[in-house]
């Protein structure tokens, strides 16, 4: 007859066998498929082994981290990785195999190597980055033109998050008094819903892309863990494809997530994001001031030149007018003196001519001729001009300047001189 055991006995055999076979600690690589901490503080997990390219789980086991150990490891893990232990995470843990007759097989986790997880996350991140680079989309959002005045802002955030509050306070309370227009697109910023929620918000904004100048994705302001939700390929891809610049302020001091890397500009915190926007405004304003000063300066110069030109017109006009005036005056003055001198000359000449006529008349006047000794001889009332007009014994009258003489012709003689003239 085969031995008959109670279940308890069998379980104990199994337990002993297991203990004998696996007395040590084993460092194990596994993926968390479930994790839950209950009120007692103990953490219960389900670990699986599922290679990335396979659909089906190849191995599975339950695990536990007892409460005091869990407190310590949780803090260690989170401070090292910046992430909290969660589903989907690959971990390297120090385990001991335990078998309990009531609860069955489980692993007790006593330690964890955060470096492994960090490495895994980094690897995953690298893969996402490489994929985006291969597709040629990695820098697409960064190549967009950033608006000079980023006034209308689409905010992807959780309204309840402290980060959103900080961002809005900074923006509205800016010391320059700039006014921004913001619209909040309520989004889950951590947990498994993050991917779907962020992409959905991005799509909603893209539908109204003409209403906004820039998109900001913000969270944190206290919570600096679980950045790896943003190492997600889909989220990053959507950001690269986005038609307007995307700024991120997802609150991580140390690392950049892939979303940060593909964004137009990653800022460290929501506050820094707000400050960046305000700075852009301030730069635009000072650029405007420069331009306006430049315009004023140019205008002033141009006006000065015109003014100088008008001044020179004025003095030219002055000069020309004076010259013309002088010239006119001189002309009229000359007329006046010419009139006087010409008139007197004219009169003098007329008078001269008259004087000459007068003299001639005087000389020719018969009275003056008689006075000079010439006489006029007449015979029977006719004036005698030639000796041939008289004969001997003729009685002739001779007119003198003062009287008449009557005489008889005695003799006549011809002048030799006169013959020549005949």
């Amino acid at each position, binding site marked *: 007859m085969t031995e008959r055991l109670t279940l308890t006995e069998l379980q104990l055999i199994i337990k002993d066998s297991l203990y004998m076979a696996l007395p040590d600690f084993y460092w194990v690589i596994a993926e968390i498929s479930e994790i839950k901490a209950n009120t007692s503080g103990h953490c219960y997990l389900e670990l699986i082994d599922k290679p990335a390219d396979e659909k089906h789980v190849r191995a599975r086991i339950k695990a536990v981290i007892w409460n005091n150990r869990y407190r310590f490891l949780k803090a260690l893990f989170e401070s090292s990785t910046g992430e909290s232990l969660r589903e989907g995470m690959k971990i390297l843990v120090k385990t001991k195999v335990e078998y309990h007759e009531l609860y069955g097989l489980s692993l007790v986790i006593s330690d964890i190597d955060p470096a492994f997880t960090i490495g895994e996350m980094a690897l995953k991140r690298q893969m996402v980055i490489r994929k985006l680079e291969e597709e040629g989309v990695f820098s697409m959002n960064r190549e967009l033109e950033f608006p000079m005045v980023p006034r209308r802002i689409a905010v992807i955030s959780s309204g309840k998050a402290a980060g959103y509050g900080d961002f809005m306070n900074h923006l509205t309370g800016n010391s320059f008094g700039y006014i921004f227009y913001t619209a909040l697109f309520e989004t889950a910023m951590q947990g498994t819903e993050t991917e779907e929620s962020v992409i959905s918000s991005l799509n909603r904004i893209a539908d109204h892309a003409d209403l906004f100048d820039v998109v900001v994705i913000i969270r944190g302001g206290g919570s600096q863990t679980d950045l790896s939700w943003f190492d997600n390929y889909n989220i990053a891809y959507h950001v690269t494809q986005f038609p307007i610049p995307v700024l991120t302020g997802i609150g991580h001091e140390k690392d950049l997530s892939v979303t940060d890397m593909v964004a137009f500009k990653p800022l460290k915190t929501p506050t820094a994001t707000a400050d960046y926007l305000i700075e852009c405004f301030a730069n635009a304003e000072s650029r405007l001031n420069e331009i306006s000063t430049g315009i004023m300066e140019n205008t002033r110069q141009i006006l000065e030149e015109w003014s100088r030109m008008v001044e020179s017109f*004025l003095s030219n006009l*002055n000069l020309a*007018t004076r010259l013309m*005036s002088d010239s*006119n*005056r001189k*002309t*009229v003055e000359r*007329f*006046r003196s*010419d*009139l006087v001198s*010409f*008139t007197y*000359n*004219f*009169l003098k*000449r*007329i008078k001269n001519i008259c004087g000459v006529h007068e003299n001639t008349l005087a000389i020719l006047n018969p009275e003056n001729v008689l006075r000079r000794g010439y006489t006029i001889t007449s015979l029977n009332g006719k004036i005698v001009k030639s000796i041939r007009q008289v004969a001997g014994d003729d009685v002739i009258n001779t007119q003198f300047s003062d009287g008449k003489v009557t005489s008889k012709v005695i003799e006549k003689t011809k002048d030799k001189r006169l013959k020549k003239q005949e």
Partner: protein
Amino acid sequence: MAKKEFSFNKAIVEIEDILRDIESGEMDVDKLALNVKRASELIKQCQKKLRTTEEEISGIFKDLG
């Protein structure tokens, strides 16, 4: 006083004509006194016109400051 508007330029031409005739001796003695009187009148009017123009321009320039 001529009722027509005084033309400085026309006056100059007329004065020149009169002067030319007197200088060349072609002037009729009968008309001499008349023409001299005319020329003298014109000259007076020219001088008056120059004076008022200069005053007006002075005023304009003063306005310009």
